[in-house]
């Protein structure tokens, strides 16, 4: 009986007359896998943008828009491709938000999006390789590439007048990637790296690491590690032995526990991490909380990813990926009226009237070639034993 009802319901659905247009947007995230705890917030971010547009009824002359979710996993690229295949061929989505992890994103792009001509916008895939991969103009991301962060960090070092630096990195993917990227960019900018050495996390004693760094010397010590782990211990050792006084602190070191430990001893040390003073960030977090969701990293980036797809559809006056892909950069960047979270209806209206918009969104989106976020960075310095924000870039 149950089965019959299910089947008849399905037949009814198939038989029901199509509206002017039914737009489907696929959301492909790692709902299972090593980063599964982050996926719900990202999904809520994307869903929020989609339901905001659906309620406004102003997309492409009142078309309906719905989200279809799929599990891209994080490490299992075969599963990610299968999910992408399902979204595109059986759900007939117009575009895909995702995938979440870089490996999955590249696999879906090459295995599904490119053969079918479907636009993908990821809010969290940050691997540098996605900047150079062949994508037929179909792949965008609202999160900056990891290579970009290193570029910004090296830029700051050079601007502050440092000519030589010693680098110590925590020996994992994050640390070694960041360490070598900073070295490459710093050397390209005319600096000298005296040593680029890894340190293991969770050791009792870092005096040997500090000794090696001190012998290599340098104007500043770049600590690409963790404030509560080896990074903090190496700073302690360097201060104790009098080998370095100023430290460059990337995002892993940007923690109040660091200044609580060292206070004014590290005055003048500085660094940068992802962050923005754009009002969109605060607005998004308020809206997100009001909707009853729990915020987590990249939720805003996914709101922006979904919003960009729909705004680009409006600008292209078509829901097809092949048309909208040429308009993503236009709606994301100046010139035009700035659009913040919660103002998607306004943006759609301006576009419908033939105007131009500069979508700012939750993460201060500014897409640089080849279709990825330039990223917004917060620059800080330790002053009087506390982290103080000295600027944004």
């Amino acid at each position, binding site marked *: 009986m149950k089965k019959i009802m299910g089947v008849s319901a399905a037949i009814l659905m198939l038989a029901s007359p199509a509206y002017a247009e039914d737009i489907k947007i696929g959301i492909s995230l790692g709902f299972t896998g090593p980063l599964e705890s982050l996926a719900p917030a990202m999904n809520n971010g994307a869903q929020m943008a989609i339901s905001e547009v659906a309620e406004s009824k102003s997309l492409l002359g009142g078309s309906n828009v719905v989200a279809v979710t799929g599990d891209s996993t994080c490490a299992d690229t075969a599963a990610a491709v299968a999910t992408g295949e399902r979204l595109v061929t059986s759900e007939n989505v117009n575009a895909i938000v995702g995938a979440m992890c870089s490996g999955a994103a590249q696999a879906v792009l090459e295995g599904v999006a490119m053969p079918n001509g479907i636009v993908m916008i990821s809010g969290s895939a940050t691997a540098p390789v996605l900047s150079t991969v062949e994508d037929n103009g179909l792949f965008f991301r609202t999160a900056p590439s990891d290579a970009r962060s290193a570029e910004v960090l090296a830029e700051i070092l050079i601007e502050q007048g440092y000519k030589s630096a010693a680098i110590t990195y925590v020996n994992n993917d994050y640390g070694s990637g960041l360490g070598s990227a900073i070295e490459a960019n710093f050397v390209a900018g005319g600096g000298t790296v005296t040593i680029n*050495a890894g340190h293991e996390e969770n050791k*009792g004693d870092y*005096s*040997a690491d500090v*000794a*090696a760094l*001190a012998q290599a*010397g340098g104007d500043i010590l770049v600590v690409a590690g963790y404030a509560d782990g080896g990074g903090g211990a190496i700073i302690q050792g360097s201060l104790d032995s*009098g080998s370095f006084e100023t430290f460059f602190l990337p995002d892993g070191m940007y923690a109040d526990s660091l200044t609580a430990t060292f206070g004014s001893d590290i005055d003048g040390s500085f660094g940068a991490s992802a962050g923005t003073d754009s009002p969109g960030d605060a607005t998004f977090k308020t809206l997100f909380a009001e909707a009853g969701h729990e915020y987590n990293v990249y939720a805003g980036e996914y709101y922006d990813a979904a919003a960009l797809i729909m705004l680009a559809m409006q600008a292209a006056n078509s829901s097809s990926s092949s048309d909208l892909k040429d308009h993503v950069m236009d709606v994301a960047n100046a010139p035009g009226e700035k659009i913040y979270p919660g103002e998607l209806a306004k943006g759609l209206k301006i576009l419908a009237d033939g105007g131009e918009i500069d979508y700012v969104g939750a993460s201060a989106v500014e897409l640089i070639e080849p279709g990825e976020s330039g990223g917004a960075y917060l620059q800080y310095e330790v002053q009087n034993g506390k982290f103080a924000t000295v600027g944004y870039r």
Partner: protein
Amino acid sequence: MIDILNAITLLANYIIVPSLAYGSQLALGALGITLVYAVLRFSNFAHGEMMSFGTMISIFTIWLFQSAGISIHPLPTALLAIPVSIMITIMLLLILDRTVFRYYQAQRVQPVTFMIVSVGVMFFLAGLIRFFIGTSKKNFADGERFIIKASEFKQITGLAEGVSIRTTQAITVIVTLVLVTAVFWFLNKTRTGKSMRAFSDNEDLALLSGIKPERVIIITWMLVGALAAVAGTLYGLDKGYKPFVYLQLVLPIFAAAIIGGVGNPIGAVIGGYVIAFSEAFITFAYKRFFTYLLPEEWAPEGLVQMLSTEYKFAVSFVLLVIVLLVRPTGLFRGKTL
């Protein structure tokens, strides 16, 4: 001449001072392991966690003293806490002896079985410690941090290199000297100490001459407890307390004990310093050292580093293998006290 002084100061700052402190901590640990091996005849893998337990008790006592406003500034409060820690650690070891080790002793089990039992005790203690104090890092060093800072040293001497000596490093070395002397005096001069040595030398003969094995074993555990509590507290004082670090310490400590000759207390102490100094000398980058000593045009461009610092622990292993191949008994003949 100035260059030579600078080079020596450089080594003092980065190798000699830190290694003396680290070596002292290893020496105390190795002494504890060697005592257990000599008297009870098994490798006590739980020793690292016993040190950790002693440190935890020290930390709790320090917190208690601090909240009561008791301090001995400029010396760290830890010095006051150590006696309390020693007593409680000894109590723990005696309880462990009564409930665990004595049973196997009575069965006269193989040393291998004993070793596995000690691994079990290690896991039990590790859990117990995490249950009470958690896993996060605790810094409990208070009082004056430095005896001399590198910058002050540079000012006083006018050299380009400075030596910094931390209070904790000095305390570690002094306490180790005192404790090691006391242990040797006890073993060699007192009646009880002599009975321990006799027991360790030949158990049956010792029994025949009227030495009570229970008494010897209890005294051994008391010595081991005191050594473990002091070694652990000094290590935590010097480097900050993190529970799982003490498991990693077991490797260099065993290496120290074996290199010195297992069961030989003098060997254990010297082994501790051998391990500490070779780890530092082999992973040190000599670039600036040679820059001071050699004529300018010979100054090295590379780091002149024999082994990257990631391989620090490997140094203990390699030394261990070399000693076992070349001189299996250790530097000093082991087995008995």
